[in-house]
């Protein structure tokens, strides 16, 4: 017999996808340190590689790895940068 059940989810709509930054052209890229040990080592290397390719790099950091980045930080990055890379290090 067919059965009706209630949706246990929040019934979200899928978030619209935003286009990724195009390859090639010089961009401003944010590197976010999530405050895990040695994340800075990884980001230093990424910064070097990005600058070699002509990109601008903005270094940012979360206050603590255990919590989402503050809204102001996210807004700031969105306004200033074309792309963002987080360092998930340990």
């Amino acid at each position, binding site marked *: *017999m067919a059965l009706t059940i209630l949706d*246990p989810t929040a019934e979200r709509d899928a978030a619209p996808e935003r286009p990724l930054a195009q390859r090639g052209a010089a961009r401003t890229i944010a590197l976010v340190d999530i405050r895990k040990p040695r994340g800075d080592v990884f980001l230093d290397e990424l910064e070097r590689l990005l600058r070699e390719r002509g990109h601008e790099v903005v270094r940012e950091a979360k206050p*603590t790895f255990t*919590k*989402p980045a503050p809204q102001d930080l996210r807004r700031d990055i969105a306004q200033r940068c074309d792309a963002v890379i987080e360092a998930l290090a340990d």
Partner: protein
Amino acid sequence: MPELLALVKHDCPVCDQVLPALDAAGVRVLSQSSAADTAAQAARLGLSRVPELDEELATSQRFDPDAVPTLLLLDGDDERDRVEGIQRDRMAALAAAAGVELALGDLPERRVGCASLTHDPEVAARLAARHARAEGRIRSRELRVGELEDVFEALHDRGLTDGLPVVPPTPERVVEMLGHTNRDPQDVVAVLPPYGAEATVEKVAINAVMAGCAGPELPVVLAAVEAAGEEAFALHGLLATTHPAGPVIVVSGYPGFNTGVNVLGQGDRASMTTGRALQLTIRNVGGGRPGVEDRAAHGQAGKLGMCFAERLDDSAPWPGLAQDRGVPDDEPGVTVMALEAPRLIMDQLAREPEGLCASLAMALENVATPRLRLAFDAMLLVGPEHGRIFKDAGWSREQVQQRLHELTHSPAGELVRGAGGSPEGLDPAWVSDPAMPVAKFAAPDRILLAYAGGDAGLFSMVFGGWAAGDIGSAPVTRSITPWL
């Protein structure tokens, strides 16, 4: 002039007795039964007309009789009087008021009727669900599981389970569950990460049904969801971390939970399903899926759901954890804390609190690694045979916490990177004096003490925490009373 309306059903001998008279007098009759059953009854009784059907039991639900036959005297839509079952003199009075001649001579003076179909448990649940939907009390989207689908497989295939079968959350079951709280189903309990979704009472109730809750646990689940959604609990990070911690619920002073033998183990429905309901709510409403948003390297079985209740009987050495953390003494409470799997602390020789604290402290030093200092909290679940030692000596919770904090200091030289061959440890730049004692925990009250378990066994259990305090997750305590 008022009119008569009768409600009957096909499998009621009292209805059979009354129907010929109603038919002969031309009274409008509505049957609660199916079309086929109603037609068969009319044929069996030789009625001149087949009773109309009470579609979806709408009229029966409106007048909500206990028994049929019910003879109603209506003035337009308003009920002026009714008779349930057979009461010959009163039925005659109703008929007279409606200007109808009812030949009641063959009927007994009185006869109790049969239960109205609206009181059949299955039908009543269906009607209650329909009513709740019509009133906007339940608003969740309805999902249809097809006739050829196995409902348990279908729920799993839709990604709505934790890997174990769940109870299908039919509208009937959810409405029944919602009867265990006085809160409006659309009240928002918490906004849950990672996608910032509102967990309404209704959504929590749906997940509580799926988890297998019997019903009385719902206020506990609601309080736990509220606590887990507090900013200080940092659920987003707990969900996303590679660490195995999950939310553990400690219930203080709420009936119906096992607090004794095998308190952390299987077998107690309330404990098993309450923890699971919180985790299913986080998964389904918040959107935190294992391997997707949940990045635990290993996880642990307690992430299916971990809930236990404190033993607050005469043997308890201290008041409940929730009450100690601000919930009024006469209210039940929950404490939700980010914890890994518990492990045993054995000391079968201690008979006084000082020695017992020394043994407990050794286990506390080992949370995560002895080298990790000040970053994680812990919970000790003290068993009755250990608790008795503190109770007999009159040691308060604060006294035990203070002593454990003192005993969980180690010399910096033993904690520095490279000591004992282990590269993990304190940065040597911080260690100027190898003899300097370094605390394991940030403060005495960062070692939480709960009390539960079976009478026999000189054991306690330690749960290691996760990144704690302002830089991580703090335990959150809430009263259950607002959710009753």
